[in-house]
Every structure is written in C-alpha cells, then in structure tokens.
C-alpha cells in the first residue's frame, strides 16, 4: 500500500532496483553456469517406480539440465521420456532395477510432458520450465547489464562533478550559486542521493525531483533489458511499454522549452494524475526482475 507521494520516487527507484538486482543476479549466474555447455548444468534425479515417474511434477529453471534416471526396483517401468507434448526431446530406455541412465537437455521455458510408460498412477507427469538462467538468453542479459553498468557509471560521474560544484558553492557561502548548482545536479540516482544528503523536507525533496529530473523518454533504460525480457514474457514487455508511453503522455502538458515547468506550479490534481501514471508503470516494472531471475 503505497502513499501517492512515494509513488513517483518508487517508480524510478524500482526501475533502477529491479534492473540492478535482476541483472546483477543474472550476471553472477552466468559466471557460475559458464561451463554449462555440454551435459553440465543442473542435475535432476528421477526415480522409476511402480507408479511411474517419481517425482511426477518437476519445476526447473531454463538451461542445461541433466536427468539422472534410476530404477529403484520396479519391474513395470523401464523408460523415462521428456516430451514437449508431441516431440520426444530426451529419453532413457531399458532402465531396469538398479540401473541408472543419464541424458542432458538444454531446456527452454515452457510446459513439458514426462512419460514413464507402464506406470500406474504416474505414467505421465508434467514439467514446468521457467525462464531464468537460460544459457541462451545470457547474451541479451549481458548486453542489458553492460548497458546499465554504463548508465550507472555515467550518472555517478555526473553526480560527482555536480556535487563538487554544489559543495564548492556551499563552502564559499554562496547560497544562490549553491541553489543553482543543486538545481542542475545530475539526473536519477545522483539527484536523489544528493537530495537526501541535503536532508530536505520530504515534500520539497519530491518536488525538486520532479522538476529537475524527468528524463526525456522514460523508457530509456528499459529498452536495454527488453530483448531479454521478451524471450521470457512478451506480454509483460508490451504492457510496460504502453505504461511508459502513458506516463510520457501524462507529462506532455507540463512541457516547457527543453524541460518541464517548475513543480510549484502544479495543482494537487496534476500531482495525483502524474502519480497514477507512474504507479501504473511501477507495478509491471516491479515484476521484471523476478522474470529475469526466476528459477
């Protein structure tokens, strides 16, 4: 339950956070799973029993998976198959009591059918593979992470230089110059941190943020992660895209020159409308990280 006032900040923050957390997690996962080419990756143990497949429901992350199929002593079932409903993707045959066979698959996200012919209650099973550490999507994630890393570095650079100007002005006791420097401080995270550092009243803090900082196109950073997201969930990407456009639209009336009008000219209604657009964007955005690292 978000107060309307925190919504705007939360939108930007959650975008930054989801991307950061998501991509950082993806990045590290890639490093760990780097050798997951042939037969590596995760190992899933499946036992053949009189009932059939044990377990009969599997939830896995996309990527390289090795199935270790063992027969714990049933005479009725000796085969395990992974199919996508029509096509057999991998199988272990003739696994009689005490035997163990392995096979490896590179699984993409989706629903699969497991088959253990001859079993009683679990002759068929289901396997749900969720997107996540998919080796195939690593390239997209790496690109998005690189893009975001450059973005953060750029913002950090701006923050350092503009903060220096501001601090110099404060030290010199030049209040007017300090105000101006603060107003011109960098965008995004830098501006917020500076604002916090100045220990302003929250309301003023928020107002400043809006006045100085709306990027020309809100969706800028999202574009970088879009290809990786589309591989997992195209609907979510489309939804976020349209919310971004709606948020951009809601800002149009306040355009002035190359920027926007000062926020002390906004009415309470204006602010509420802007908040609603940003909140509507924040919600689907908050799901991006989970999608990218889901396992």
């Amino acid at each position, binding site marked *: 339950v978000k107060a309307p006032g925190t919504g705007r900040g939360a939108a930007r923050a959650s975008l930054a956070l989801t991307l950061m957390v998501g991509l950082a997690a993806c990045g590290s996962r890639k490093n760990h799973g780097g050798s997951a080419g042939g037969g590596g990756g995760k190992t899933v143990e499946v036992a053949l029993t009189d009932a059939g497949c044990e377990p009969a429901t599997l939830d896995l992350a996309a990527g390289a998976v090795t199935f270790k199929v063992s027969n714990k*002593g049933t*005479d*009725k079932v*000796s085969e395990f198959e992974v199919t996508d409903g*029509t*096509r*057999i*993707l*991998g*199988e*272990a*045959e*003739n696994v*009689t*009591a*005490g*035997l*163990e*066979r*392995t*096979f490896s698959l590179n699984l993409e996200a989706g629903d699969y059918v497991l088959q253990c*012919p*001859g079993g009683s209650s679990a002759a068929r099973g289901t396997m749900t593979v969720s997107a996540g550490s998919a080796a195939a999507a690593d390239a997209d994630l790496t690109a998005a992470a690189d893009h975001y890393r450059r973005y953060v570095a750029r913002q950090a650079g701006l923050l350092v230089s503009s903060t220096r100007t501001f601090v110099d002005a404060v030290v010199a006791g030049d209040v007017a110059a300090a105000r101006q420097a603060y107003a011109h401080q960098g965008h995004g995270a830098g501006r917020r941190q500076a604002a916090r550092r100045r220990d302003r009243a929250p309301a003023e803090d928020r107002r400043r943020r809006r006045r100085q900082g709306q990027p020309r196109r809100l969706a800028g950073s999202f574009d970088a992660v879009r290809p990786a997201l589309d591989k997992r969930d195209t609907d979510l990407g489309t939804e976020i895209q349209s919310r971004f456009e709606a948020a951009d639209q809601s800002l149009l009336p306040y355009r002035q020159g190359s920027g926007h009008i000062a926020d002390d000219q906004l009415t309470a209604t204006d602010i509420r409308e802007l908040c609603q657009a940003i909140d509507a964007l924040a919600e689907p955005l908050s799901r991006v990280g989970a999608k990218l690292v889901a396992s």
Partner: protein
Amino acid sequence: VLPTFIIALREGVEASLIVGIIAAFLGQQGRRDALRWVWIGVTLAIALCLAVGIGLRLVGENLPQAQQEGMEAIIALVAVAMVTYMIVWMRRHARAIKRTLEGEVAEALVTGSLLALVGMAFFAVLREGFETAVFLLAVFESASDPAAASIGAILGLMVAAVVGYLIYKGGLRINLARFFRVTGAVLALVAAGLIASALHAAHEATWFNILQARAFELSWLVAPGSVRAALLTGMLGLRPEPTVGEAIGWLLYLVPVGLYVLWPDRRRAAPRRRSTVVTTVEGTSR
C-alpha cells in the same frame, strides 16, 4: 520373470527374426553357401556393437539416443523393403517352385540381391545391437542384483537366438509352394510390424511427430514386462499403446500387401480352376 530377460529377449528377437527369415529364404533358394556370409555379417555386427558399447562406457558417454533411434527407423524401413521383396518373389515363383523338385533352385537369385540379403542380416543385428550392448554392459556393472540380472539378460539373448534358429529351421521345412499364402501372410504381418516399429523409432528420433495420440489399448495382449509382450513386440511390432500414426502405417502396409498375398491367382486359376484344385490336392497328399 526377470526384467532384464524380457528386454534382452525383445531386443534379441527383433534382430534374430530378420536374420532367421533371411537364412530360411536363402536356404529355400538352395543358397546355403551364402549362409556363411550371413553368419560372418552377424558376427561382425555383434563385435561392432560390443566394441561401441565398451568404447562408450570407457569414455563415459551415452549412446546418442535420437541418432540411435533414427538408425533403427531407417534399418527397419529397409527391412520392410526386403521382406516385401521376398513376398513378391515368392508370389511370383510359387508356381515355379511348385513344379520343380524340392530343393531345386527355381530361379537363381541375382548376386546383387544376395549381397543385399547378407547386408540386411548385418544391419538387422546392428539395429538392436548398440542398444543391447549398452544395456548389457550396464547390467553387468550396476544392476541391483548383477548376477541375476546378467543371467537374465544373457538367457534372454540366448532364447532370442533360439527363436531365430527355429524360424530358420521352420522356414526351411516349410513347403513354400504349399504354404506360400501362410508364409506370405506371416511375412506381411512381420513387415507391417516393422513399419510400426520404424514409425515408433522415428518418433523417438524426433522425425515423426504427428498422429501421436493413443489409438487403442493393447496392454491386455502386450502386457508390459511379460514374455508374450517381448515376443509380440519383437516379432510383430505390437506395442501396449499404439499411436494413431503407427496404427495407420500398419494398416496401410498390411491391407494391400495382405490382399496381394491372399488374392486368388486369377490369371491362371480362372481358366483352369478345377485343375488348380487337383494340383493342390495332389500337393497335399504328397
């Protein structure tokens, strides 16, 4: 019965059936000299399969399952062509065989088809051999009761070899002229079963993915894990749960070829129906 026995029996029979049919056919044609080449081909295939099985085990690799199934599908289809050729050959020469003395060559087999038959025996063993070799080695090493499981597997292969030998001996003893229709019908069933097996293997090789719904339930007849199932699957390609595609393929082969085998020999029978009956009666009384 031990499951390893069942599996070894099924895989073994799938190979020995084809070899037995080829050997019997060659024997019928009086080409026992060619039998030696059949045995050499079979021995080579067994050696090759064991070598591959041991090799894979040594380097810790799995048999590439999809490729293996693809090979099974192709060899099964070639076997269908061969059995069909035999059916046609017998049908064409049934009358000639009838007229000549027993054991005499009705018409010399072309060298080409002789080679093809020998090659077929080799490939028939190869078709099931890789999988069986891998299975055997796994059983020797790591079954929960290795001794019993190994004995079961070896017994299964021995019984399969005996089945092949019986087919050969029985095939030799059959009076082709007299029992042509029966022999032809059995061969048509075998070939139709090979079609179903080929389609099944093709599905496992991911080549054939349509019509995979279960056509009907045969597990009352082909109860999984039973000796009967091993023999029915191995010889006639029957499975507990045939798919629609397999059933269609089976029928598409069996109906026309079955009709071809069973259709009365109108061309000659029509004008001399009575004499045909007489010949048959004479044949029976001989």
